[in-house]
């Protein structure tokens, strides 16, 4: 029962968060990850992957979570029975970055914060949309980072990183986002 084992620290984390920020209700946090889960799902519609990333229709479109899973069931619920461009959606959880090659979207859990640069370097130039909510995630060459501002969930996008990964991010998504990193995309 590794999942159950994993859950306990999350609960502990949640509890500490509630205690640390009394103005933000506990439900608000679960809500935050529900929202992040929904955003993660919608990235699939607003980002274009190169053809080689999903050569066959039978290959599932995989959303991976690296490290501890903060979403609980919400991501699985959102993704259930959904498809992206004809590919079945699949949520997988990983402990090590070496296992994440089949992913199209990879959420790098805050639990991996200390190893983030390492992980990102490892994923460099792979067609994987890296998403995270670690502080300055996008600035540190993650592609899309979740940012909370004005009590709203916002996005920070590193276009250079996206470009390096061969991903095309829809201008509509960019309109909702804050662009960080080098101003001009470098080939």
């Amino acid at each position, binding site marked *: 029962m590794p999942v159950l084992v994993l859950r306990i620290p999350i609960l502990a984390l949640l509890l500490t968060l509630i205690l640390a920020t009394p103005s933000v209700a506990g439900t608000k946090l679960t809500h935050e990850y529900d929202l992040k889960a929904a955003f993660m799902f*919608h990235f699939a519609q607003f980002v274009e992957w190169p053809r080689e990333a999903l050569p066959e229709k039978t290959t599932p479109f995989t959303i991976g979570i690296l490290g501890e899973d903060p979403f609980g069931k919400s991501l699985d619920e959102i993704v259930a029975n959904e498809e992206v461009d004809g590919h079945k959606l699949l949520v997988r959880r990983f402990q090590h970055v070496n296992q994440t090659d089949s992913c199209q979207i990879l959420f790098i859990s805050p639990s991996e914060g200390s190893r983030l640069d390492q992980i990102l370097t490892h994923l460099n130039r792979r067609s994987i949309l890296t998403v995270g909510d670690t502080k300055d995630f996008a600035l540190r060459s993650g592609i899309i980072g979740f940012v909370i501002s004005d009590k709203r969930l916002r996005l920070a996008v590193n276009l250079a990183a996206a470009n390096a990964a061969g991903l095309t991010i829809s201008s509509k998504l960019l309109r909702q986002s804050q662009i960080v990193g080098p101003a001009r995309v470098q080939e």
Partner: protein
Amino acid sequence: MKAPRTTIRRKLVTAMMLTSTTVLLLVGAVFVAHDVVSFRRLLVQALITRANILAANSTAALAFRNPEDAGQILAALKTDPRMIAAALYDQKGRLFATYPASVPPGTVPPASGPIGHRFEKSDLVVSQPVAEEGQSLGTLYLKSDLKELDDRLRVDAMVVLLAVLGSIVVAFAFSTWLQRRIAQPILTLANVARNVSEHKDYSLRAKGAGDDEVGVLAGAFDEMLSEIQQRDKEIRQLNVDLERRVNARTAELEGANKELEAFSYSVSHDLRAPLRHIDGFVELLAKHAGPSLDEKGRRHLATISTAAQRMGALIDDLLVFSRMGRSEMRKTSVDLAALTEEVVQELKADAGNRCVEWKLGKLPTVQGDPSMLRLVLVNLLANALKYSGPKEAARIEVEAQSQNGELIVSVRDNGVGFDPTYSHKLFGVFQRLHGSDEFEGTGIGLANVRRIVSRHGGRTWADGTINEGATFYFSLPK
């Protein structure tokens, strides 16, 4: 043939104007209806297109929960005054963003409705899905007013009205020109017909009436006129012939009559001399041999004498009668009243002690020959006196009255009268209805009356009943 009350021109123009105006209005109505329908379709299409663009633009705002951005996207609608309201609903149908940013309640539905378009009162409403890459993200609601449609309708109506008005003017000009072409030959024909019937001038012709049915009619009419003219000419010719022949015959007859009169005058005149000899010598014989003759011989001599005298009277009358036909008339004013009075006085002397009541009505003055008219009155009054002889109390009336432009004088008696069957014979020479042994006379009197009256241009007639009296009339033209 009077002028017709409504002219064919007006009828033609009215018919053409009615037809063209009706057709124009119908076409105009169809045009407006079609235009409105297609314009509505266009409005719907335009609104759907706009909704689709907005929906495509607002996918990310919906996906990534950015109502401010959604509001900004919707706010672009403010450049179009037709847009009343807009709203975005999320995937669960909850209101996400609106245009204007704060809408009065009821302007947009609180939750998303069915996809599609519909007309609501004066608005057009469209609901379109918002989706990215096949992933449904929510619903867009757009509400536009239909002022444009109203304006379009107004403009259409104005265009149709102007077109109809313009066309009516053109149609009027055109139909006036057309009706002239159609009506002119008919009017010409009608004019000719009217002139023919008014002036009986059959030399008129209605030619040049065109090559259509009216032309055929005019041709037939002209042919009829020619025929009538021809017959008219023939009839005139016949009349002239006839008149000439009558004149010739009349002249012949007059000649023969004159000859006959001259003959009878000379015969009568020549008969008188031997008769006078007979009478004279009978008288001499009676003087000379009378005493030596016996009673019977003397009576024979008396009979010869009487017969000779009667024959003399007869010849005298015939001479008068023949003179009446030949002698010249001297027409002057004749006072009939005075003349009648004079004649009556003379006759009264002859009547002796007979009881006769004379009644003379009011008689006028006429134009005529006095001596001839005197003879007429003498004859008629003497006849009346003679034939009322057997009556104990005789009554003779003379009257005059005007009738149909002539003067009619009547002489009425209560004498023996006559059988009206023979009244036509009364005025003939030697015609007598009574024997000379009953009433003396030569039978020339009434013949003389008729001759004199007819020479004055009048007529004579009589009516009567046996034993109840007779009335003799003569007329004189005024």
